C-alpha cells in the first residue's frame, strides 16, 4: 500500500533544494520507523515521490509526497510518527492511505497557486496585474544551463489577482511546463523582493490534488 501526505515547507527549511528535500524525507522516514518499502539495488532507498518540485526560497503549505509501504500503517499513526522526527519547518498536515494501483499524484498535476507578499512599499500592483492579463504575450529572459533565452510566460499564467498588497497567481505546473513565480514577479516588479508561498496544487479541472475521502485522517 501507499501513503499520500500533504506537508508544509516553511521557516529555515525553505533554503534547501528539492534534492535536499528528498534526502531529508528519506532520513525522516527511516527515523519514523514506518514500514517503508525499499528499492532494490546497491543503494536501497524508500520509494518516495513528490508531486512537484518547489522552487528554492519559496514557502509552501501544500506539498505532496507519495511513499510506498511494505506493510500496513494507519494514516494518523504515520502523521504522528513523521511529525515527531521532522525538523522545524517541515510538517505533515494530512495523510491518506491508497492502494498500489492509485494513480500517482504527479500525473494529475496541472496548476500551482502561489501567494506573493511584497517586502516593501509597492504602487500600482493592481494595474500591473491587469495590464499583464490583457497582454497576449509577455516575454522574459530565462537563464537555463548557462544560456539566456526569451520565453513567453503569458500562456503559463492563468490567474493574477491583487488582493490589497497580496498577489495571487495560478500558473501552469506540470512535468513539461512549470513557471517559477519569481520569473514573473521579477519581470513585473524589478528590485522588489517578495515572500512567496505555494498555497495550492490543482488538477486540470481545478480540484485540489490532495483529496480526502470521508473517514480518513486529516
Amino acid at each position, binding site marked *: 500500500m501507499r501513503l499520500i501526505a500533504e506537508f508544509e515547507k*516553511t*521557516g529555515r*527549511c525553505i533554503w534547501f533544494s528539492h534534492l535536499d528535500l528528498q534526502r531529508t524525507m528519506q532520513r525522516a522516514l527511516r527515523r519514523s520507523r514506518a514500514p517503508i518499502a525499499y528499492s532494490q539495488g546497491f543503494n536501497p532507498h524508500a520509494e518516495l515521490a513528490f508531486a512537484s518540485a518547489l522552487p528554492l526560497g519559496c514557502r509552501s503549505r501544500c506539498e505532496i509526497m507519495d511513499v510506498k509501504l511494505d506493510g500496513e500503517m494507519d494514516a494518523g499513526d504515520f502523521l504522528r510518527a513523521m511529525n515527531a522526527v521532522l525538523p522545524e519547518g517541515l510538517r505533515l498536515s494530512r495523510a491518506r492511505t491508497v492502494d498500489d494501483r492509485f494513480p500517482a499524484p504527479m500525473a494529475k498535476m496541472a496548476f500551482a497557486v502561489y501567494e506573493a507578499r511584497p517586502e516593501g512599499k509597492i504602487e500600482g500592483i493592481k494595474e500591473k496585474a491587469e495590464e499583464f492579463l490583457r497582454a497576449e504575450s509577455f516575454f522574459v529572459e530565462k537563464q537555463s544551463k548557462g544560456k539566456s533565452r526569451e520565453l513567453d510566460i503569458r500562456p503559463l499564467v492563468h490567474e493574477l489577482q491583487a488582493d490589497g498588497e497580496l498577489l495571487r497567481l495560478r500558473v501552469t505546473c506540470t512535468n513539461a511546463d512549470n513557471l517559477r513565480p519569481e520569473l514573473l514577479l521579477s519581470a513585473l516588479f524589478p528590485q522588489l523582493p517578495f515572500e512567496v508561498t505555494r498555497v495550492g496544487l490543482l488538477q486540470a479541472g481545478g480540484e485540489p490534488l490532495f483529496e480526502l475521502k470521508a473517514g480518513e485522517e486529516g
Partner: protein
Amino acid sequence: MVLLKDEKEYRGVLPFLRKGKCLVLLYDAIRPLLPQVQKPARYTGGEVNMTVKDPAKMDIRFAFCFADTYEVGMSHLGLKILYHVLNKEPNVYCERAFAPWVDMETKMRENHIPLYTLETFTPLDRFDMLGFTLQYEMSYTNVLNMLDLAGIPLLANKRGEEWPLVVAGGPCAFNPEPLCDFIDLFMVGDGEEQIVELVREYDAFKKKGASREEFLLHMAKRQGFYIPRFFRDSYFENGDFKALTPTRDDVPATILKAFLPDMDAADYPDSFIVPFTEAVFDRVSLEIARGCTRGCRFCQAGMLYRPQRERSMETLMKQAERLIASTGYEEISLSALSTGDYSCLPQLVRGLMEQHKKDRVSVSLPSLRIDSVLGETLEETRQVKKTSLTFAPEAGSQRLRDVINKGVQEQQLLDNVRDAFEKGWNGVKLYFMIGLPTETEEDLLGIPALAKKVTEQYYAVPKEQRQKGLRVTCSASSFVPKPFTPFQWEPQNSIDQLMDKQRFLRENFRMRGVEFNWHEPHLSFLEAAFARGDRRLGRVLLRAHELGCRFDGWNDCFRFDLWMQAFADCDIRCEDYAYKRYDLDAPLPWDHISCGVSKEFLKREWHKAEKGELSPDCRQHCHGCGIRATFGKGVCRTCG
C-alpha cells in the same frame, strides 16, 4: 524596520544587530541575500538534532568555529564530539560557525553583516568564547578571515575583556607558533574532556569577576593548555630558532598534551546534526580507535595520538544503534587511523550488519591498510552496499617503503586486490607520496609499475566472474615534513623537483583504466613552511590575509602570487622554512609541546630510516617511544 512575520519560524531568542538607525533581525538582513548565493542552506542552520537552548539563560556562549565551508566542517567528527560534550553542560550553549563561501562573503561584506552562528544568528562578537579547530595549515587564513568577518580584532593583544576569548585546538595546535599572535589559548591533545574543563574553569573565573589575564595564568598551569603570551621566542644571529621560554617562573616550560586513557569511558554523541544539504561525509561515523601502532615515519597523526586506544565492540554497537535511530542515516563508516588494525574488525562488521540489516544500512571501511585482515571482512561490506576500496602503499618500491616504515609487502597488496576483484569490486584507489626522503627515479617508477600490476590482477580474473569497468585511481601527494615525526628534520623537495617528478610520473602513467592525480606542489610548499613554522610566520599570515588570501586549500581560490608577496613584504623566505634541514640537535620551534613521544625515539627512528631498517608494528615489539614513561604504566595495550 522589517519584522518577522511568523514568530513560530524560530525557537530560541533572536539577536539584534544595529544597522543604520534601526534594529533589524540578523536573519532578516541575510534573507534577501540567500537567493543570490550558492547552496543557501549552508547559512541558515535549523537542521535535525541541532541543539536548541535559550541563550538568555546560559552562563557561557561558545561558538565552535570551523575554518572551512559548512560541507567540510559538518563532515568533521571532532566537531560532532565537542558540540555534544559542550552542550551537555547545562549552562553552556555551543553553536556553530563556518567560513562562508566567497559569494556569501562578498554579500555579507557589502551589507555589513557580521559572521554569525547558525543556531541563533548571533554575531560572533557576542560570544564568551570562540573555539577554532585547526585541522590543516592551509586553513589558517580562514581563521583570520572569520575573525575579520565578525569584526573582531585579529591580534590577541588588541582584544580587551570586551571581546570573546579566542581558543584553538586540533592537530595543528601541536605546533601552533604561526598562530600565536592571534589566539589566546591553545588546547593540545584529546579534546573532549579538556574543553569541558576549559568552560567550567572559565565559568568559575567569570563568576568570581577575575580578569582574563588571571584566568589565562591559571590555565597555563594545567595539563594541555598553552598560552602563548606567557612565552617569548628568541633566535640566533643567523636567524635560526633558539628557544621559547616562559616569561614567568610559575608557568611550566613544557606543555604535555591532554590525554584520554579509556575510550569506552569517553563521551560520544547520541545524535549527529543531519545537514539538509549534503556534507562531504554524510553518515554515521564510529570512532573505533584513536592512535595507531604502525609508526610510519612521515605520519604525524601516528605519533600525536599515541598510544592506540580502542573502543569495545559492545560500546560501538550501542553507539551505532542510537545514532542510526536518531539520524536516519543509511550508512555507517568506521573511523580510525588504521581501521584494519581494530582487534575484532570482522566481528564488529558482522555485528553491525546483523543489527542494521533490516533497515538497509550499509557499513563502509575507509583508510584500509593494505595488509589488514581483509578476506571475510571484504565479503561482508559488500553484502549490503558496495563501498570503495582504498589502499595506501605510499611509496612505489619496497626499499622506500622500508625507509618510511610502511611495512607492507607488494604481494600482500596484490593478493588483497585480486581477492576484491574476484568478489566483484572494480574500483581501487591507491595513495602515494612523492618527494619522500631518499627517493630515487627507481622508486618513482615503482608507482606506475604497481598500478599496472593491480590492473593485471583484474584482467587475471575470468571475464564472467569480474565486474565490468575497471577503475584504478592513483593519487600522489607531496611529502610535507611534519613536527613530531622522525622526518621532522628533513627538507621538503623544491617545487621544481616536485613538478619534475609529477611530469615524469604522468609520462609513465599512460595505461587503460588508470587515472593519475597529483597535488598542487605550491600548496605543499606553504604547508611545509607553516607546519614547521615559528612565531615570525604570524606576520606573513596577517599580511596574506590583508592581501586577500583565504580558502587556500581550494584550487579556485589559492593565490600563490599573493602568498609570495606576503613573504616578500615581511622579508621572510618561505624556502628557509620548507627546505630547511634541521640539525638533529637543533632546538625546534615546537620543543615546548609534548605529545608524549620522546625526541630520542624520533631520532632513533630517523637513523633507522637512513639505513632502511624497519620498526615493526609496536603490538609485536615495543620500541620505547616514551608514551609509557610519560603517561605511566598500563596506558599502552601492547607495552603495558
